[in-house]
Structure formats: C-alpha cells, structure tokens
C-alpha cells in the first residue's frame, strides 16, 4: 500500500498534520506529523504536500546505522522503530521524495499508514490523500 496525494487540491488547513500527530503521539502538533504542508505564497501560489510515498527503492532502510527500519508485511511497507532511531538524519538525506524528517525530539518521522486507515485521509476536507494498493 502507498499514500498518494494530489497537492493541487490542498487548501492548507493543516488538519492532516494535527490528526497525524494526535494519532501517533497524542498531541496536536505539526512538528510531530508524518505529513507536512508547505505553503508558497504569493509566488508561485501553491501548496506542497510532503509524506513518505512508500517507494519501491526505499533507500532509507539501508542508510540507517541502527537498523531502525522494519518491514510491516501486512501493509507491505517499511516503518521506523523509534526506540532504535538515533536521529542521525541519514534516511532524510537519501530520500529522493522529501518524505521523512526529524521531529523536535530528534527522531525521524515517516508515515506508517495508520495500520491501513490513514488519519489524514479521514480528516482532509478536499480529498488530497488517497490510499492505493499497488
């Protein structure tokens, strides 16, 4: 499974980010969200939506010195074990899609698809996000 987004539909409400942090870390805080929305106004006048796309190459997994990544076979994705993550940032550097980043607690944040029912999809008013089975 993968998360796809159509950022042309985004209106910048940031509900996806607080729903994500509330789900995973029981806080309303975009800094702890696995998705991010960047607004670029007035030029070019667009929103950019960032999140892990669960890409086939997943260079992040091999870059980790702590072997913090583990495969979620049910969803067919790679996830991060925060107990092992040392915040080195290697995974962020090698990600070609700007799909992961560091939280203020120096742990890498990466989408885990909420066990197959992503919160971002549930709260987005404009249908930006979509879960695809491929």
């Amino acid at each position: 499974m993968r998360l796809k987004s159509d950022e042309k539909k985004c209106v910048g409400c940031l509900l996806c980010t607080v729903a994500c942090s509330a789900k995973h870390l029981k806080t309303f805080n975009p800094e702890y969200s696995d998705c991010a929305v960047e607004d670029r106004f007035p030029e070019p006048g667009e929103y950019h939506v960032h999140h892990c796309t669960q890409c086939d190459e997943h260079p992040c997994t091999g870059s980790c010195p702590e072997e913090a990544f583990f495969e979620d076979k049910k969803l067919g994705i790679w996830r991060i074990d925060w107990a092992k993550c040392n915040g080195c940032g290697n995974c962020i550097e090698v990600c070609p899609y700007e799909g992961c980043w560091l939280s203020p607690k120096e742990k890498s944040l990466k989408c885990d698809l909420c066990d197959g029912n992503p919160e971002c999809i549930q709260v987005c008013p404009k249908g930006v996000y979509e879960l695809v089975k491929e």
Partner: protein
Amino acid sequence: MTIPGYTGKVLRVDLTAGKVSVEPINWDWAEKFIGGRGLAARYAWAEIKPKADPLGPDNVLMIWTGPVQGTMVPLNGRYLFAAKSPTAGGFVDSYVGGHFAPELKWAGFDGVIIKGKSAKPVYLFIKDGNAEIRDASKIWGKRVDETQKAIREELADDKVRVAAIGPAGEGLCKMACIGSDLYRQAGRSGIGTVMGSKNLKAVAVRGKLGLKVPHMDKLVEICKESLKSDGIDNADNAAMITDGTPILIDMSNDAGILPTRNFQAGTFEGYKGVNTETLKSTVLVRRRACFGCVLACASFTRVREGRFKGTAVEGPEYETLALCGPNCGVGDLNAIIKFNLECDMLGLDTMSTGDTVAFAMELYERGILKKDDANGLDLKWGNIDAYIQMPEIIARRKGKLGQLLGDGVTAAAKKLGGDAYKYAVAVKNVELPAYDPRGTMTMSLAYATSERGADHNRSWPAAVEAYGTVNPWTTEGKAAMVVEDHRRTAAKWSIMFCDFLSIGYPSIAKLYNAVTAKNVDEAHLRHVGERVWNLIRAFNVREGLDVKDDVQPYRIANDELPDGKTKGHKVPQNEFEAMRAEYYKLQNWDARGRPTKEALHAVELDDIAKDLDYLKK
C-alpha cells in the same frame, strides 16, 4: 484549577521597560468568561485605566485565543487583538484568521498583554514558552510583506507566523489594521493604530510545544465527526465552500443594499464585473483555508491581463469588493485586486479605506473638494488612475488629500465643515460595512449598538431581512433579534469559532465540552454571552459612551435610495430611535443605554457594577 484546552499561560510585555514575563492565566476568569472575546473584555476592564489615551502608553494591546485554538475543532484558526479604540473610543476586539492562532497556542500561550510604549521600533518574538523584544529599526517603514520576509530571514525560520502593521499603522492613520499571514487582517476601529502608537512593528510567533488534552482520543473522535456534520455536510456552509463571501455581490445588488457611489444607491449597473462568477472565471487561482477549516472560503487570485497583470492577493472578500468597488463607482475587478493588495501591504483596512475614497469622490463630484485639495487628482467616480493611488495617499497622509482623509470620513467631514457631514457614512467614527440599512432596517440598530463602531459581525440581520424572508422595512419587534445576536456572537467568539462555521448553541456546547471536558448546556452559554456583552457595554460606558453615540449616519436617516428593491426607502429617525429604545429595554439598560445594577447582577458582574460611578448614586 486548570481547564483542558488552555495552555494556562499569559505573556506579559512591558514595552516601556523592555521586559517580558510569563504568568498563569486567571482561571476564575477563564471559567467565567471562557476565552477570546470574554477574556479580552475582562482583562481590558482590569488592565486599561479608565479614560486612558488610546494612543498613549496606558492603552493595552492584547492578543487572545480560546480553548479550541490549536486543536482539531472545526474552524478554530482564529485569534483577536483587543485594546481601547482610538476611533470608536471604547472597547475594540478585532478578529483574524490564518495560522497565527494555533502557533501561539503551540508556543505555550493563551494570550499576550502588551503595555507601555517602546522608545524605538521593536518587534516581539514569541517562541516555545518565552519571548523577546527585538530591534525593528531596520524593519520600520516596510510594507507588511516585506516585514514578514525580513523577520523570517532574521530568525532564519520560514515557519514563523507574523502579524505586522504597515506604514499606515506606523503613521497612526486611524484606518490602520494588523496584517497576519500577509493577507489576513485584524481590521476596523484603529487596532493597527494602537500597535503603531506603541512603536511595535510586529508580533512573530513560532511554537513547537503542541497542545494536549487528557482525553485526546475522545476529542479527536468528536472533532472528526464534527468536521463532517458541522462542517462539510452542513448545508448552511455550502456557499462558503463553493464561493466564499463574494457570492454576496449578486444577492446585495438584487436586494438593493449594495453600497454604490458612497451609499447614494443600492444597486450598481456594473455589479456583474465584480461578482463571484467573474472572480471565479477570470482571476481565481485556488481556495485557501485558515487552520483547521474544512470550508476554505478564501480566494487566492491573480490578475491575468491588462495593466495590473500579475497582481496577486488573497481576496477580495465581499466587503472589499463592494466598498472598494461599486461604492467608489469601480466595476473593474482587476483594479479592486490591486487596491486590495495595496491596502493589505500598507496595513490599511479595506473597508474604511474604500468608504473614505467613496466619500472623497462624492465631495469632488459635488464640488466641495477641489482638484487642488485632492493632490491634483481627478477624483471622478470610477477613475481608476486616481483610485489606485489612494491607498498610498491615505496610509502615508500624502499631500492635502492624505492629511484630510487619514483619520477617516468623520474626522474629514469635521475639518471640512458645512454639509460634508451629510456624506460621511459612519458610526462612532468607523465607516459602514457593505449592507445598506435602507434595505435591511435592523442593520442600522446593529451598526449603532456595536461597541466598536459600525460593524456587521456582532449582529447581522441582513441575513434574514435582505437575503431572507423577514420584512426588511419594519422595525417593530426587531430589537430582540439584535439582542440575541449580540449574546450569541459574544459566546461563540469567547470560545473562538470562526463566524463562518454556521452552528447553533447545541453544536457550540458540544465542541466546547469536547475540548474542556465540561458538561455545559445551551443555557449556560447564553448566560456567558449575556455576561460578556454587558461587560463590553460597561467598558464603553466607563469611557463615556452612551446613547449619544449609538446613532445612524445622516444619509441613512434622510436620503431615500433611488432604484432597485430599496427605491424610496430610508430608515426614519423616529423608527430607529424606537428600535434602539426597545433594544435598551430588552437588555435592561437605562434610557441612556447604560447597564443597570440589576442587569449586571443578573450575569454575576457585581464587581464591575461597583466600579461604575453612575451606579454609586
């Protein structure tokens, strides 16, 4: 005591001493007045000395949020600035959306209290539980967009949220607003002027602390349901999703209440050039939302051709379209967008500026204002060349025209003398919004009794009169509607929902309870609303305002509209006064519009009553 949803902390800033400190929120007041409007009013009562000079160091500029800000409650991306108004003379709170509100909560504060006056230009930077006063001498003089850019560069963080004044606020222009996230304005009643008087250029905030409540999972579930039922699927919100406020242009023109050529008419021949269809088909780039909003009513627009090609702004909203468009005889949407952007970046309130330009144009057309006094401009109705220069002239008080208009239409009419007052369409020195009361007579009472001068948000009878099925040309029994609105908005804005979330008391209570883990009902919130509204009125009475200030503009009472559905209509002064008397009676205020001891006692404001001289006799 603590209440979930609040950070529990207030930032106190003394600009004279150059010091900041952190204190706990007054929990008793949070219980009694909730937040937002209610807390702003209660703190204003305590912090602002009676009869303080609104542009002196004794005035207090405050920022307040409520318990829902920074959560997932629908349409919570809102905060307010409050102070004593330099125009209306009483309490002013000015609401603004965007993304500043949650950032302040995530930075650890419910509110900010700013006193004194800095000797040199400064800005306030709030971050994660602390704050610092920083030098703004290099930023002073800059436009709002340049200011945000400079501050973000200086702090090396492009996620910092900035609320700033422009040259208008710096120069103490009475129409100055505070620009937040570039395109969102805390406007009306000179709130930006107060900020300028303190030599405070901007407030910048960055918060990484987030916000938690003990019952996160339950709150999230209620919010997710509410985002749909109260938000997206709520039929009352449909127009805000598809069009936003510009949808009102057609409706107002049809109802004959679209301000045209300084309120000389209620219909405009070129209204189709500035309506929502034209906006959507010619300039709309995308919709934008404030934080936590599922409606996304804002239109981000860019002019695609002609002399203003490339000009981009978030807007124009209905008020700007109407007051800077038809009210100035302007039917060119592209020119309005340029005018809108100029006002936003200079830190000018588009509503007051549009009305003020309209006023100047009428005086010019009538020969009262000569070309020499108009900086050599040919101020004919709809003359784009002159029109487009007006924001700069007003914001910087350039030339004779800028000197005349910089404080708004009432002050300008006083300077001019003679008949000029007949064309100054304002209440308490604040220019009228875009709903002509001559096609919705109860609006005149709403404008008159608003504490911050002519305002359409505290009560908006146009919704049911001009746009609905209630007879707009009778005043009988109408005061009750305004009383109800004033209490409802006071409650809704104390919790701090956006106006555009069309929900009644049951949903308001549901969401307030969801965040705070309380179990209050509709009656409780009605009571809080009544309490807050009485407190605000008491503040104004303490400042010397009363029935003499709750008036309607000359034109509304005396000039009949010439065409459309409102042809032949005005708001006769005797009918207006009867409606106002009924309003006071329903509030249990005296004939001068002052809260009685009983009225204050009924809403547990006995401590406030003790401070009011007229109640001591």
